[in-house]
């Protein structure tokens, strides 16, 4: 199995080189894939209070000790809800309020048009950013951007991730290899060429 991913795009897609981060303010975005939690953690590293909404029945938990390499978990509030209706109600309330700058929403079923639009309007009213962590292929039409995130193996580096924009309302699609820089607490974009297996100076 080869970790080199050849990027082949349709003709109408324009690939930009600079990554559109931080996420556009006053909008709701989506992230999916195995690295979605890491994407959320990197987004939360931007600073400010974070509200993480998830359903209480899930056996899988987020680990604040692990997240502390990205941001300070004491800035984070966790809301455990009974079902997705409650999750969306809490998220809308928090987005509209605008006290927390980032609301991370874990959803289990796809949002319909009305729910997605309501979240967008709430985010616009409160000037706060929303990020839905969705199961793959369950995106909502109202999302501003949708990211596919997956960890990638690399020699000598254990934070390499591949982030791909698969939906973008106000920009172009893109595909980036990024690394988490723990000292500077930011992401470094790595050129995919350097990722080619067998390359001599691949990420020292």
């Amino acid at each position: 199995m080869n970790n080199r991913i050849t990027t082949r795009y349709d003709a109408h897609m324009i690939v930009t080189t600079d990554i559109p981060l931080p996420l556009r303010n006053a909008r709701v975005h989506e992230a999916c894939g195995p690295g979605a939690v890491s994407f959320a953690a990197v987004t939360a590293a931007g600073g400010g209070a974070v509200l993480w909404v998830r359903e209480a029945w899930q056996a899988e938990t987020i680990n604040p000790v692990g997240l502390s390499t990205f941001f300070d978990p004491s800035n984070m509030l966790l809301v455990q809800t009974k079902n997705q209706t409650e999750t969306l109600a809490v998220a809308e309330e928090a987005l509209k309020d605008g006290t927390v700058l980032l609301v991370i929403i874990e959803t289990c079923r796809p949002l319909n048009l009305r729910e997605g639009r309501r979240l967008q309007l709430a985010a616009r009213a409160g000037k706060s950013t929303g990020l839905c962590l969705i199961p793959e292929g369950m995106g909502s039409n109202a999302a501003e951007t949708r990211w596919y995130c997956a960890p990638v193996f690399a020699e000598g580096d254990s934070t390499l991730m591949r982030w791909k924009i698969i939906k973008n309302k106000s920009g172009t699609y893109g595909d980036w290899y990024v690394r988490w820089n723990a000292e500077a607490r930011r992401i470094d974009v790595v050129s995919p060429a350097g990722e080619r297996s067998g390359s001599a100076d691949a990420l020292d």
Partner: protein
Amino acid sequence: MWFPRLASDRVLRTHLIEGPFALTFRQANADRLHCLNTAAEQCGLHRGMSFADARAFCPDLQSQAADPIGDRRFLHVLRRWVTRYCPWVGVEGENGLVLDVTGSTHLFGSEAMMLADMRQRLVRAGLDARIGLGDTRGAAWALAHYGEGTAEAGAPHAALAGLPVAALRIEDETVIALQRLGLRTIGALERAARSPLARRFGPALLLRLDQALGRQPEQITPLVEPPHYGVRMNLPEPIGLFDDVMAGASRLLDRLCAKLKAQEAGARVLCLTLRRVDQEAQTVELRLASPLRDAIRILPLFERGVGEIDAGFGIDQIRLEAVQVEPLPVQQISHVSSGRVDQLGDLITRIGTRIGLENVQRFLPADSHIPERSFIIAAAAYSEPGEPWVAQRPRPVRLFPPEPIAGTGSRPPRQFRWRRMSLSTARATGPERIAPEWWLSDDNWRSGIRDYWHVETRQGRRLWLFYTPQNPGWFVQGEFA
């Protein structure tokens, strides 16, 4: 006012029991009689007797365990009730009340009519009371406990002279010593020479005597009324519109907050009761994330609850009560303090009214190497952000209950299947041995020590695997960023 059978009367008020009845109190490993009714006293039982003896004397004795805290509370209820006779009421011992009725007797006609009224009402309430009235606190106590009656104003000697010396509120040993000296009544004591008494018994005896006879002053200390955080409003015409109810609530809230401010307190739980014209009451409960007494901030938090109220034919009484109150001292506002914390508190409250305040949580660091116990989840409304987080070693961002995978040996398997994915190990870092905390029993750690490995797979996933050498097996417990 003395209630000789307060405890048993309190129980008998709710459960009607015929025949002898006693409350027992466990003392020095033996059940002793604490309080008994008249029927039991007629059987020859007395207070302090052992319960086994009492059963032998009186086989049909019924009993219950005593509840001193409940009795105390009941006495305070009585104290509040007694303020109908005079405003100056104190508690005397465990089962007595002391009233300063100076200047309020004429409201009931005369002293005798007031006493008759008190007796009548207490008998109707099922309480046995002895009431003594005198110029001084000591005289009233003596008369209540030993020979009920009234001492004439200005002449306590006449009423007190015949009472035993025990009526002076002195210790039992002093009473016995005085009886041995032949001084059995207060009259005899008063006629005796003072200096030998003072030399033998100390100043306390003469002080009590003088207090009873009015030569020394003695105060009555009334208890402070606990502040009552409830306000209400009666409406001349029933209302039903949302805005009207909110306007009413706003007026009540202003009054309540002024009260809270005077006491330097903040409400934690508020209860808005709306009584409809058909006498049915509906309540809106508001639990706040932090103690508050700011009407402008509290009022919008009520909107959601009030919106769900069914007004029926209209609401004619609104009542607002701070059910739970916490101290909230006045704080100096400075240019560095930000309103951000307050806003976050309001947001927590608003989310809490929808899904329950305990579901809004925050992580607090904990001192443990066990991954599941290295953090605590606490309700955000009742906790403060703790110490800074320190990750000594790389830890996964996601944790799940251990999922078994196929593997043998103490090195991570080269190939394994996990969640229907076939993965191959590219790099493994470890082992990091974590031993179970023997001082806490945890079923998940029954399998003994664990060797944790940070395994990076060629497919990209970075997993946290562990091996249990004492019960060989491989498990996946987390995933790294």
